[in-house]
């Protein structure tokens, strides 16, 4: 009988299936290397190119000498660090307190407040910044003009075009909201028995917080600080709008201005970008190490201790948190909306002060219509492509034993650390300098790739963690029942994962609509998206027009997020 088995060499069929899997894995592997590693590599390579003309590579260290000695270049890096410390030094304590209040006290309308922070996270930071420009512009900002009406005040006290103005715009953007969203569940999930054991052992509430809760939260806090630092290096558009009027550059806006000047200084931009990457790399390794370890130390508990009673402080604390969350969401949006329907913002007493003329002119502008179309194509394309790519990456990392999957895992982490603008720069090199790909430059395809790459880490992580929870036995049961690997993937894995895939698709749609940094360098006049023309209008000072576009972007990103949430998708971020 054994001969019969030999006559049908059973291994061959298995190895053919194995081959199909290997082929797919190889394709995915090469694609991610091409999309993620290769652009980053090119940035480093081109920093050594001192050739004057394009297409010829001439080795030299001139750009590095420039980047390391020019005071404005070094100043940009110092400014990045100063902003990072200032913004997160303020945001973290505020976020910790708010998260604790939301998670552990009897503050009223807890869920409503949390929902507002969630909205704040999804608001495009450019739109929020626009709202604050309306209020805090030194010339005609509404807060300044209001204060100028007071006697003896000739000059408004606020200036958004300043270091602290930028800090303010970031706090109002998602620096606080992101941390609150990450910290609240962590506070909530601390196993109540840890706290109760401490209380029973004789420690008071304060002592318990200091000696049990805070140390138990430490890993989570450090992870969030690291994450904030990495994300801070990615900030771009707020500084691009608010910085140049007072000659203030951070390293990403410096890279951008080096490339957008005539003639572009690619080598210098690359040298600066490489420096930035070198600064981020240690952070990503630390972050990865921490997040891997955290899998074993997550604090989970079904039981909750009784919430802390705030007593007479309940109302004041509620009002305080409400004010903060309104400053993050409704207040800037109100001024954006107001600007969009005023002939000139702040001039309430002129004839026809309120008008829909901005709306009408924007909606009849071919450039706007083209940008809307571009945005829809890009966001939809990014949503679809990312789901396919990320689910394959996740599957290969979680469920196969290919040696190279460790490299795949690492590559999928890189985009989290590398600022979107730099990926844009890298992709620009790939598509401009490689003859084979040059025809694709100037197409929407390039923008889709850029936004897919920028959302790779988060998307892959979400699918990965869900696949891990899926449990191998569901797939094994299908194999035993007689299904091959590919049948199992199509009929068992994918259908179960559908809600998660939908979630990732929608999140990438939203991310793409408001993305500025990753597409700023690669979009051409024909492929500009709404977020990019909004940026153009803001840089040109056409705030009323920018306001109209801004509201459309908010509608397409935050609006879609709210609709998806109504349909039950748990859109959000998990650490």
């Amino acid at each position, binding site marked *: *009988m*054994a001969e*019969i*088995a*030999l006559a049908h*060499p*059973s*291994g061959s*069929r*298995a190895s053919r*299936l194995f081959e199909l899997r290997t082929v797919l894995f190889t394709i995915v592997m090469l694609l991610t290397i091409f999309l993620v590693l290769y652009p980053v590599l090119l940035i480093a390579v081109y920093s050594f190119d001192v050739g004057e003309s394009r297409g010829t590579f001439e080795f030299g260290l001139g750009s590095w000498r420039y980047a390391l000695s020019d005071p404005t270049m070094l100043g940009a890096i110092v400014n990045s660090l100063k902003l990072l410390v200032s913004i997160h030094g303020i945001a973290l304590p505020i976020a910790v307190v708010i998260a604790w209040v939301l998670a552990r006290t009897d503050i009223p309308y807890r869920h409503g407040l949390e929902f507002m922070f969630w909205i704040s996270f999804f608001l495009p930071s450019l739109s929020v910044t626009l709202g604050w420009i309306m209020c805090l512009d030194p010339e005609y900002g509404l807060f300044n003009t209001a204060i100028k009406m007071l006697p003896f005040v000739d000059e408004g006290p606020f200036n958004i075009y300043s270091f602290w103005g930028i800090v303010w715009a970031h706090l109002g953007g998602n620096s606080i909201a992101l941390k609150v969203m990450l910290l609240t569940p962590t506070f909530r999930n601390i196993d109540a028995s840890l706290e109760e054991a401490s209380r029973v052992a004789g420690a008071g509430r304060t002592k318990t917080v200091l000696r049990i809760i805070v140390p138990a939260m430490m890993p989570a806090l450090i992870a969030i600080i690291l994450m904030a630092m990495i994300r801070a290096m990615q900030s771009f558009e707020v500084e691009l709008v608010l910085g140049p009027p007072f000659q203030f550059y951070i390293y990403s806006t410096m890279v951008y201005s080096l490339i957008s000047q005539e003639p572009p200084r690619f080598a210098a931009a690359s040298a600066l970008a490489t420096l930035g990457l070198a600064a981020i790399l240690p952070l990503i390794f630390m972050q990865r190490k921490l997040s891997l370890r955290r899998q074993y130390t997550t604090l989970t508990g079904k039981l909750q201790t009784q919430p802390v009673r705030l007593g007479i402080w309940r109302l004041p604390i509620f009002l305080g948190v409400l004010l903060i969350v309104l400053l993050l969401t409704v207040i800037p949006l109100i001024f954006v909306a107001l600007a969009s329907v005023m002939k000139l913002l702040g001039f309430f007493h002129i004839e026809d002060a309120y008008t829909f003329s901005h709306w009408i002119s924007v909606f009849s502008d071919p450039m706007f219509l083209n940008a809307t179309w571009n945005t829809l194509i890009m966001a939809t394309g990014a949503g679809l492509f990312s789901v396919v790519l990320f689910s394959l990456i996740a599957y290969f990392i979680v469920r196969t034993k290919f040696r190279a999957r460790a490299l795949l895992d690492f590559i999928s982490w890189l985009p989290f650390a590398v600022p979107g603008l730099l990926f844009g720069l890298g992709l620009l090199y790939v598509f401009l300098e490689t003859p084979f790909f040059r025809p694709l430059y100037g197409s929407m395809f390039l923008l889709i790739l850029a936004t897919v790459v920028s959302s790779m880490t988060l998307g892959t992580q979400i699918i990965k963690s869900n696949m891990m929870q899926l*449990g191998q*036995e*569901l797939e*094994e*049961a*299908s*194999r*035993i*029942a*007689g*299904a*091959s690997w590919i*049948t199992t993937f199509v*009929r*068992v894995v994918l*259908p*179960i994962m*559908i809600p998660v895939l939908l979630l990732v698709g929608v999140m990438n749609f939203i991310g793409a609509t408001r993305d500025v940094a990753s597409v700023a360098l690669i979009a051409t006049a024909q492929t500009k998206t709404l977020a990019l023309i909004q940026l153009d209008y803001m840089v040109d000072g056409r705030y009323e027009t920018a306001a109209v576009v801004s509201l459309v972007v908010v509608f397409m990103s935050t609006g879609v997020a709210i609709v998806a949430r109504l349909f039950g998708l748990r859109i959000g971020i998990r650490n």
Partner: protein
Amino acid sequence: MAQSIIEIRGVSKSFGNVSVLRDVNFSIAKGEVFTLLGPSGCGKSTTLRIIAGLEDATAGEVILNGRTVYSSDKRINLPPEKRNMGMVFQSYAIWPHMTVAENVAYPLTLRKLSRAVIAERVMAALRLVDLEAQADRDAPKLSGGQQQRVALARALVYEPEVLLLDEPLSNLDVKLREQMRYELKVLQERLGLTLIYVTHDQAEALSLSNRIALMSQGQVEQIGVPDELYDRPKTEFVRDFLGKTVTIPGRVGAAEGGSARIALGNGAGDLLWTPPPGVAIPAPGSEIKIAIRPERIALSATKAGRENCLAGKIETVLYQGDRTECAVRVGNDLITIYGPPEARTMRDQNVTLVLAPEALTLWPK
């Protein structure tokens, strides 16, 4: 023995230097319930998964119905979907995106049967596990016990040659587990199923199995019918894994006919031991341990003056409803025995322990 349906020959598995299975051999007859029993980490689940094709062995052969499905030497490795086995997983592995009927129909659709045949066989399988009424419900909405039945129906519906069960009852509560154990036995006998059953629960193994392979640290310690393992364990591991054992150190004394007198090391007296056929009496003076199951020790209030009686004093009594568990001081040793419920109030009383002579076994010290 009847024709064997599964044969495992010299199966080993190791990860680098760590060996998880060492030279496992057994064969299973058609219609047999064969249990792989052992503590967690002993390799029983790995053995089952190698039979299923979910894991590869490092060496050895798996032969199903005369056909080699795995052989490391001949480089044969049939994928799980080609082995036509059924399997019930510990987590049940019910696919959450399908209804009960769809779950059960899945293996049949893969076999490209006609819709009418599938419908008929699905209902028949559900009838078997008493779940006809739940056919159109979403599978995740069922209770644990019902999911267990769906998993069973799904594994049986395509009439596999062998049914593999990996700790199938361990996620159920005690009452349900006992009921399912009973139903599984009835079903197996009615359909003449061949089962390979993995469990760490000795009561489950003893009550369900025709034969048991007790495993420890990647090796088979002993294979046999349940009472053989329980009454005539070959190793101390088997003896101590199945049930409780009382051991008392002693020394072999003079032979008396076919028996030997054992002087107990605790100074409580001596016992007469008769070796089973084919077993030799150790040389006089050998240091040994004498062992007996606690349920083979009777509690007597009066000194009977017979052979194999030991005087003792009850120190602790744990009342358990249908019986008591008494810790009795015999010489220097504390021996745990099972007493009648009435022994509940007998703390500090002097008693006599009567040890059944045929239940005594001798072990090296």
